Structures are given as C-alpha cells and as structure tokens.
C-alpha cells in the first residue's frame, strides 16, 4: 500500500518512521516540504493532535509516529474516520526508539468534524 509522508527538512525523527513503515511492507514516498502545517490543515488534523510529520495512505491521514500495526488495522477495518494521530513524539514509538526510556502512548482516531477517540493504547 503506497504511503506519502510529508516532513520538514530539519526534523530529526521523521525518517525513522519512514524506515519503520518500509520495514513493515509499505511503499513510502518521503516528501520534504517547507511548511508541514499546510498539509496538516488540508488533511484536517486537529491542532492538538499534531506531531512532526504527516502522511497519507488510502485516503486516510496519518499524523506522527503511528505504528505500522495500527495502520494495517485501519486499512482492514476502514472505520469512518479521517485518520490516525499519535500526538507529540513519544519516546519508544516507531522512529523514536531511545535508550533514554519509553513513554506510554495512545493512538487517536479523528474525524473530519474533529471528533477524537482512542484507537489503540501502547504501554511503556
């Protein structure tokens, strides 16, 4: 399944997520843009769910370091959502592996109207 990922040139972690997605069988086009905010607004990513990079897959938005397993479940179940978001840059999420530690995180689903729900929880 092709994924298009948008990031700013200076972000130090977005490439790690691209590699994670490729390692999990996704064909990822890695696009550097001047203003990622433009992409986020076009895809309707709620501001408070924002992370560094933003991607598109099969009409869904993917915001931040969303694990490939969650993306696969999204594509299987096709819920009535605009996309998934992992707000911020949690340590231990794909592309954010760190010896400094891990943080628990929750992947959110959001709709075009801005409704937000929990999609998956990931323990430390």
């Amino acid at each position, binding site marked *: 399944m092709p994924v298009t990922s948008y990031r700013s040139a*200076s972000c130090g972690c977005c490439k790690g997520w691209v590699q994670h997605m490729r390692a999990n069988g996704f064909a990822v086009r890695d696009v550097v843009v001047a203003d990622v905010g433009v992409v986020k607004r076009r895809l309707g990513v709620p501001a408070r769910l924002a992370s560094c990079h933003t991607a598109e897959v099969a009409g869904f938005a993917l915001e931040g370091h969303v694990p490939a397993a969650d993306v696969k479940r999204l594509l299987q179940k096709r819920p009535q959502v605009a996309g998934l978001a992992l707000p911020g840059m949690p340590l231990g999420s794909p*592309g954010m592996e760190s010896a400094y530690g891990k*943080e628990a995180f929750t992947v959110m689903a959001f709709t075009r109207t801005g409704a*937000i729900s929990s999609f998956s*929880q990931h323990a430390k």
Partner: protein
Amino acid sequence: MTTPLRRRQVLGLGLAGLGTAVVGPILWDRVQRSAARAQPAGAARLGSRGGVADLELVAQATRGSLPGGPAELLTYNGRSPGPLLEVNAGDRVRLRLRNELKQPTNLHFHGLHIPPTGTADNVFLSVPPGGSFSYEFTLAKDHPAGLFYVHPHQHGLSADQVFGGLSSALVVRGDLDRIPEVAAASETVLVLKDFASASGQEAAMGIGRMLGREGPLLTVNGELNPGLAIPSGGLLRLRLLNASNARIYRLALEGHRMVLIATDGGAIATPESLEELLLAPGERADVLVQGDQTPGTYRLLNLPYQRSGHMGMTAAEEDPRTLATFRYAGSVATLPLPTTLIPVPALPKPERTRRFVMAHAMGTGMGGMKHDMGAMGGGGMAMGGMGMGFQINGQAFDPDRIDTRVALGSTEDWLIVNDDVMDHPFHLHVNPFQVISRAGRPEAQRRWKDTVLVKAGEEVRIRVTFRDFTGRTVYHCHNLDHEDLGLMGVLQID
C-alpha cells in the same frame, strides 16, 4: 520594603472531575481554587542575618491532592515552591540540602556568579537518598541584586524533580534595591509553575518528554489564580520566575503596561515599557506596574504561545489563561517610575566565536548514556546506539567529555543555532552573558542574561566574559526534559 508572600500550597487543591478519559479535550479550565490547606510546612521565607545565611532545604515527597485525585508532589520543606530565600550581596551562604527522596538529587544556584566547583555551584556532585550536603559560598560584595533560582540539576532526573515541584526563588539584595523608586515599590515574587494533573493524561496527548512536559495546572506561588494587590497610586514590583519544566509564558497584565527594570542577571540601564513579556523556563524578569488605572480587578494572563511552530502545530492552548487576579488596594502617594537604573557595560571585543547547533536526532554512540542507564531503568537499544535524543553539535551530553575549553578572563561570542522543530531556551551556568543579536538583528538594549530563548529555526549571538572562577560547568537547554535527553555540554574554564 517587601510585602509578605501569601502562600497556600498547591497541595490543597480539591476538585475532582478533571476528565479521566484519555479521549476528549483536556479540561484546562475546570480546575478551581480551594482554600483547603496542605500538611504543615516549613517557613515561607528564609533569610540571612548579620552577613550569614544559614539555610536548610529538605527535598521530600509530600502527599497532597490535585484536581482529579491525590498526588505526590516534590517539595522543599513541605512547600512547592520551596521557601523564598533572601540574602544580601556579600553574604556568606551555607545551605544544607537534606535528601529525603528515593533518588539522588542536588542543587544548582541558577544565575549566581559563584565558583562551579567544590561546595558552590557544583552540579556534578550528587546527594544520595538519605544523604545531605552543605553548600557553602560567599557572594561578592558587588554581586548584582536580582532574582535567582535554586533547583535540582541531577542529570537524568532534573525534569522529573522540577516538574514534580522542586524549586525555590532566591533573592539577592543589592544595588537595584537601593534605587529610591524601586525601594518604594511594593514587592511581590511570583513563581510560575505548571503541574501535571493527578491523572497525568496530558502526556498521552503528546506533551511528553520530547516536547517537554507541561501540565494543565498553572500555579503562581503554588496557588491557582491567587488574589494579589496593586497599591492604588503606587508602584508594584513584580518579580517573575519561570520555574516550569518546559512551559513558556507569554504574560500580559490587563489594563497595565509592565515596565521592565531587570532581567536574569540584574538591572538593566533604562526602564523599558512592555505590552507583554515572554518568559522561558529558567528566565526571570522584574517589572514595575503603576497603580494608575481605575481601581478594580485586573487579570495577569498567560497568552497562547506556540513553542513548536515548525511542527505545524497551533498553540496547545488557544485561549488566554488567568494566572492571578490583581485588585487595587489602599492608596499611597503617587510614585514616579525610575528613569535610569544601573549601567550595563559593553563587554570587550570577543577573542573568538563558537557555534553551538541544537537539534533532536538519532544518536549513534552511547555518549553519556552509560551514566544514565541505571537511573533510566536500563532499556537496551535493539539498534545498538542510544537512539533518539537531543544533541549539541551532533553530540549528546557526556559528563566525562569536555566539549568547550575557554580561558579565564577571555571574552567569546557564542552563536546559538536552533536547527530543530521546537524552541530551546539556552542556559549557561556561572557567568552571565549579553545577547548581541537575534536572527541577525542587533539587540536594542544590553541586558544581563543567563538563559535566552532560541526559537525553532532561529540563531542568537551571545557574548560572555569568563570571570573570576575556573572549573568545570555546563550549558544546556532549560527545557529540562531536553537537558535530561542529552541537550547539554560541558564547559571547562582554565
């Protein structure tokens, strides 16, 4: 000269109902003040007598309650913020730190010009659980008057401990306090500090360690929206300290301008009237407010500020939030504003320029991590290296590596480059600096600083003379999560 601080601790906040679900908006504004009081605590202020300050801070975990449930806060002497420490230039200071935490801690005397070694501002020493240490140093007779900041600097745990509640404001009395208009002003120290909610759910909403943790509970001197006084007709001297882990405050006082008279390291030369004031973690500012408006109530506001603009985010909080409410009280003879303060001399021409580039990145070596693995609870890296963290010039902090060697008495320009998607407040220990230019634009007025906000993508040139003290110290990002995640370097002054 000063008005007693009204301190009610944050521990007594008693509102249930901050949403427990992770999903949905964080209920930023549903926290309310409560008059409930915390467990008995030590004195609200500790000072010097006859040229000697004999002080004790006990770092401890204190049970209390936050909106949403019980919480364990970290306190000095049962208080968060800890007691206000007040000393005079020229004083001998002896400060005994007792560590009743379950983890090591230590103290940094943020902004003081004292040795970085021995029993002074030595952030490389560590006080084990159950241990104690006596910090001892003498402030120079001509040490600038100002508002300084005592907080833990235990690498790998600094953010946890400061975010948990450990901080004390430190007032040094001296030159600025003797200016008649300043001396006549009514003085209030405001320690600005955000706390996590009892549920801590905000981390799940993305405000984790990489961005630097913020909490939804905005306290002033440990209280939510305290009531404070403006002397009608007179001058109010607000002394502001940002003791938060990562939150940057954009402050405005309704109906009033704030007249800046001092920055981190002491007085500026000429008062400067401001509509609003940006205060990054570790920064301080003294402002005068004239009580010349219609008596009433005026809110001290925190306006929205975006500290990760290059991530395309809008501000996490989109509306102004009330920090404190001021009421006109009493009536005093009209006090004029001072017209001049204390000269800030130009520093000598720099002998060299260095460049420091801050960014987050995947590291390859182990760097300083070998020292942190214990504190961080281990956690091996499948990929071998240390993984994601922050770096200066491509290297994460290593306490055993000297990154920058300078000569005592020399002057240097440091170009601080933020090549990251979020803001980094840059802090240098021991020696104050002056900001020369920001994004290529010269600064309008010289100011003594020890912490400067370098916004995402920005470059700031600072100038510093390394005076009086040799030894090993550090410079780092004062978003303390970033510091703990590697954004720190070691400076050796020979």
